[in-house]
């Protein structure tokens, strides 16, 4: 990662996010000469997982909550669409509760909502999920700490250096300025890149609001490898 890119990413140690204090490496990362990390991204074993872009159809009934469409494009930093790449998402239910035994938030689980999905991008790099809007939830980082509503995303991109795990937020959420995880990103423009926008054109009348969120992964232009067919 170049120094300029590095300044746009959250630091490892961000004391306001208490969880970083004992987990951030204290020693400097070792920088390798150019090329040592320029090999292809992991090949995800797609035969082992079920692809399902519709998180509202995993059970016999419909989940409680506000049905939404979350869609966008996955591009590399050179502007090329990433085709046929896997996008993994997971999230809390409408009440702000994850289907996880360690989630102790006293909000109800929804028997009709697991909160996980996977899909592949199309030839234009587009992905599309149908889900329900996740709720905010409390966490114990500081007194009266609440996470803004968010959906977790995981992507591989084309090269090993393209890997990204991040979170997508919703426009206008008043919890965002108080959230140390989002605020760990040093600049406002960077934080805004994690906020989806309401998309009236993609909203389906009488059915679901749509949110648009594009994702940019590191490209491989600076490497001797060529991944375009």
């Amino acid at each position: 990662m170049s120094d300029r890119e590095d300044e746009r990413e959250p630091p490892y140690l961000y004391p306001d996010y208490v969880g970083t204090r004992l987990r951030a490496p204290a020693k400097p990362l070792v920088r390798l000469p150019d090329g040592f990390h320029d090999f292809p991204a992991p090949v995800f074993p797609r035969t082992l997982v079920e692809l399902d872009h519709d998180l509202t159809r995993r059970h016999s009934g419909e989940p409680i909550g506000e049905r939404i469409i979350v869609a966008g494009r996955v591009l590399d930093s050179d502007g090329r669409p990433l085709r046929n790449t896997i996008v993994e998402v997971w999230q809390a239910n409408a009440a702000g509760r994850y289907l996880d035994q360690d989630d102790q938030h006293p909000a109800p689980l929804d028997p009709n909502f697991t909160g996980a999905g996977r899909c592949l991008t199309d030839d234009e790099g587009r992905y599309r999920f149908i889900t329900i809007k996740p709720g905010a939830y409390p966490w114990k980082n500081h007194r009266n700490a609440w996470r803004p509503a968010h959906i977790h995303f995981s992507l591989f991109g084309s090269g090993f250096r393209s890997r990204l795990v991040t979170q997508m937020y919703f426009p206008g959420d008043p919890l965002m300025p108080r959230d140390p995880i989002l605020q760990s990103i040093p600049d406002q423009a960077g934080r805004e890149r994690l906020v989806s926008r309401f998309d009236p054109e993609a909203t389906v009348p009488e059915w679901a609001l749509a949110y648009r969120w594009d994702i940019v992964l590191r490209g491989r232009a600076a490497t001797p490898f060529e991944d375009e067919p």
Partner: protein
Amino acid sequence: MTAPLTPSQTVGPFFGVGLPFEQGEQIAPPGSAGAIRIEGQVLDGDGQPVPDALLEIWQPATGFGRARTDSEGAFGFTTVKPGAVPAPNGRTQAPHLNVTVFARGLLRHLVTRMYFPDETEANATDPVLNLVAPARRETLVAKSCGGVLHFDIRLQGEQETVFFAI
């Protein structure tokens, strides 16, 4: 023109519903020819187990694996040992696995490498190990014990694992 990258955020504590998948830790079936077992623990700056970490191992020649840590911070993979890996400068790298670490409290993932203890000669000339201060190199080499390769990941502290800028 280069578009700004989408920034990273932590995987959080509740990735269990979305990321692990069945047989994710088995790149090779246990007991198959050439299968090796890797086991270890992820530890924080106080030496306490990290029960909410997700590890990915990847080497183009051998495949991709994903495993989470358990309540003791322990993880395991079954895979095959890769061969030597070409280096960009025309040299050769000793056999190794690329290891990526995600966890609650990690706002960005960490990248390290696991080298093999039975490759003393290749490790001694490996261009990446030779960039690491000698006293820290051993954090990158697994230890062989009872037919299992043991590889702990210490996120912080005296014996902190070497992580690479990516």
